[in-house]
């Protein structure tokens, strides 16, 4: 390696990636070193792409990599150039400058202005002392870039950017574009705040907390709206992957068992020599599946995602039925089937159109399970796998273990997928451990865990 300190910086960077769930081993680090050797350090973007080629191993990890890269290989140190000479004096001037840059779509200016904004508005505590730092949230809160859209549109129109032909249609396109630019600018501010915080508090600490995890490791319970939308988009490709896996398992189990009786009968026609062996084909019936989902506030995101996933996998099962509950149970199979086209509003539609909430929207496991066993117990039979999704937080009510027992006794398998950390089971009002004594309970906090569970648990 050429420059001093590069090796250390690179290994620290790889360490940070590992902590964020990108499994880069020594071989990858060596590759990364070789890539740097070939590319040199003149162009930061080339270095970024080169390291990504060597260290990133799948598509979803790129965002994590980029955030870490900005921390460990920052574009500069301290306040960016623009901030030193003709910096905006106050908030209003800064907003003007940001609006102008948004209208231009000038990436470079926006990146610099993000730096200025963090410098001006984002500092807290003792500025750059030990107790202080920089907050992206605080910066955006004071700057309010989303309120600039109207101003930016006016600027674009004045510049003649939106041509008059097409009229309203072009206008709407432009508005969407400006919205996306504002979103990018917010991303710039976050990166910049992380960079400045890293200067104050040390990179490794910031890397540990400030980088968002890759999509398939996002915790269901704390996923933001944008992350949930990203997860919903992942349903289709993920379901294809899982379907291939399930099909492969099915193929493997039916391979190559000799059916002795039929082979011997056939061998009679060839003088007792088994020329054509006959194989035993088990014809496995595809399993039926019943989902029973808790849709109360905290776990709704997890339940919705799983519903969509099972629905996307429906050709792997002979029958899929979905039931949802908050404090009473209702069948929502038809809504889920229709919801594939519009996954975004699935949760809301279920709450509107099905009788899942009777009282106040707090989950009542006892009542909901009683409702299920009373009305739909015949949906569960000896070929059914039941998946119960929920955090088992009964709000102090009766957990109704008898109902779970009744379901277990009729079904082929019952699994409980709990989106909470195992350490939290049966703390507070959670009856998780009581349920776990009756049926297998698995921690299922993110997409990664869910996909392994689906392929491992479901019978073939």
């Amino acid at each position, binding site marked *: 390696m050429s420059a001093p300190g590069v090796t250390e910086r690179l290994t620290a960077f790889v360490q940070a990636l590992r902590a964020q769930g990108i*499994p880069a*081993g020594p*071989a*990858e680090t060596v*590759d990364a070193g*070789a*890539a740097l050797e*070939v*590319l040199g350090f003149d*162009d930061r*973007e*080339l270095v970024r*792409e*080169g390291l*990504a*080629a*060597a260290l*990133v*191993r*799948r*598509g979803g990890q*790129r965002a994590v990599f980029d955030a870490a890269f900005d921390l460990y290989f920052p574009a500069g140190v301290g306040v960016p150039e623009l901030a030193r000479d003709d910096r905006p004096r106050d908030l209003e001037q800064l907003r003007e400058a940001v609006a102008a840059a948004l209208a231009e779509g000038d990436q470079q200016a926006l990146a610099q202005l993000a730096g200025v904004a963090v410098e001006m508005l984002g500092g807290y505590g003792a500025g750059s002392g030990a107790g202080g730092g920089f907050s992206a949230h605080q910066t955006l809160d004071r700057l309010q870039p989303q309120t600039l859209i109207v101003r930016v549109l006016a600027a674009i129109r004045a510049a003649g950017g939106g*041509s008059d*032909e*097409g*009229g309203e*249609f*072009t206008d*709407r*396109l432009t508005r*969407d*574009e400006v919205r*996306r630019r504002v979103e990018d600018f917010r991303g710039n501010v976050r990166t910049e705040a992380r960079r400045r915080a890293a200067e104050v508090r040390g990179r490794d600490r910031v890397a540990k907390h400030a980088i968002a995890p890759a999509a398939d490791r996002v915790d269901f319970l704390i996923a933001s709206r944008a992350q949930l*939308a990203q997860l*919903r*988009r992942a349903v*289709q*490709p993920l379901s*294809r*992957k899982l379907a*291939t*896996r399930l099909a492969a398992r099915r193929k493997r189990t039916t391979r190559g068992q000799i059916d002795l009786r039929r082979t011997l009968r056939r061998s009679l026609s060839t003088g007792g020599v088994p020329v054509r062996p006959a194989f035993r084909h088990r014809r496995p019936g595809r399993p039926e599946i019943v989902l029973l989902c808790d849709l109360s506030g905290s776990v709704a995101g997890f339940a919705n995602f799983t519903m969509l996933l099972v629905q996307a996998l429906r050709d792997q099962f002979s029958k899929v039925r979905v039931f949802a509950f908050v404090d009473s149970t209702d069948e929502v199979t038809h809504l889920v089937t229709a919801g594939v*086209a*519009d*996954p*975004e509003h699935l949760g809301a539609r279920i709450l509107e159109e099905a009788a899942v909430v009777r009282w106040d929207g707090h989950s009542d496991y006892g009542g909901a399970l009683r409702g299920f066993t009373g009305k739909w117990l015949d949906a569960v039979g000896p070929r059914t796998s039941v998946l119960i999704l929920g955090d088992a937080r009964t709000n102090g009510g009766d957990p109704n273990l008898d109902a779970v027992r009744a379901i277990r006794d009729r079904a082929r398998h019952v699994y409980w997928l709990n989106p909470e950390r195992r350490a939290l089971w049966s703390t507070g009002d959670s009856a998780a451990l009581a349920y776990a004594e009756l049926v297998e309970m698995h921690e299922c906090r993110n997409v990664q865990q869910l996909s392994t569970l689906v392929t491992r648990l479901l019978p073939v």
Partner: protein
Amino acid sequence: MGTGFFSSVDDVSAQLAEVGYLASTAVATTVFLADRLGKPLLVEGPAGVGKTELAKAVAAVSSSRLVRLQCYEGIDEARALYEWNHAKQLLRITAGRDETWEDARTDIFGEEFLLRRPLLQAISGTESTVLLVDETDKADVEVEGLLLEVLGDFQVTVPELGTITATRDPFVVLTSNATRELSEALRRRCLFLHIDFPDPELELRIVKLRVPGIDAALADSVVRVIAALRAMDLRKLPSVAETIDWARTLLELGAGTLDEQIVRESLGVVLKHQDDITKAGAGLKLDQVLDAS
């Protein structure tokens, strides 16, 4: 080490552009590294963003021959690597009835009776080669093991012939649509490149290059509408191939600019699902029926 086709990252961009492939920084950098470090390049990304075209373009600029292995479910060693031409061997044996077994045996396992499949083709011969393993994820896990073996040190052992080693390492591109997880070992052996949809600026250049004669303003609005569509939550997002198709369609229709009418009529070129078309119509607010006046 390496194939040595290119002298720098800019050189990669310039050369690929000459054969009509406009590479983003990420693509150019990774191709350059694969060329220099002599590692295979694993390219992932949605359908229609130009994964296969990349291999073809690299072959074109380096004037190498392109050997293509198209993977499918159930592909095996005999289809990917080599097999013996049994029919020809039988003919040879029957033709030489009066010779000894020794002569016949040494003869029928010679070069002449070997059917070279793509992987073996790529590492034999002296000219420079680009090996394209297309849709690697469709193949079974056993084939992945085979690929690892071959791509590891570019040599294959045929029991009757001995070891065949490449005199010139091929430039290897593997593509995958991520329908199945490729094994960690294979990923580790490769440089990874995720080609995503190009940014508007690059896409505009691609459209202008691929659809000559298109009006600049029209191309610009096409790319903008496509960008708006990709920001929506659709089942199948339009890829670059669809952008080009659509631009061609509009050119055929003689549209000078985009308005709602034309977009609504030709949306079927861009989107492949009916519910996507409905959703896009609502998103672009095409559902308001226009006055014909």
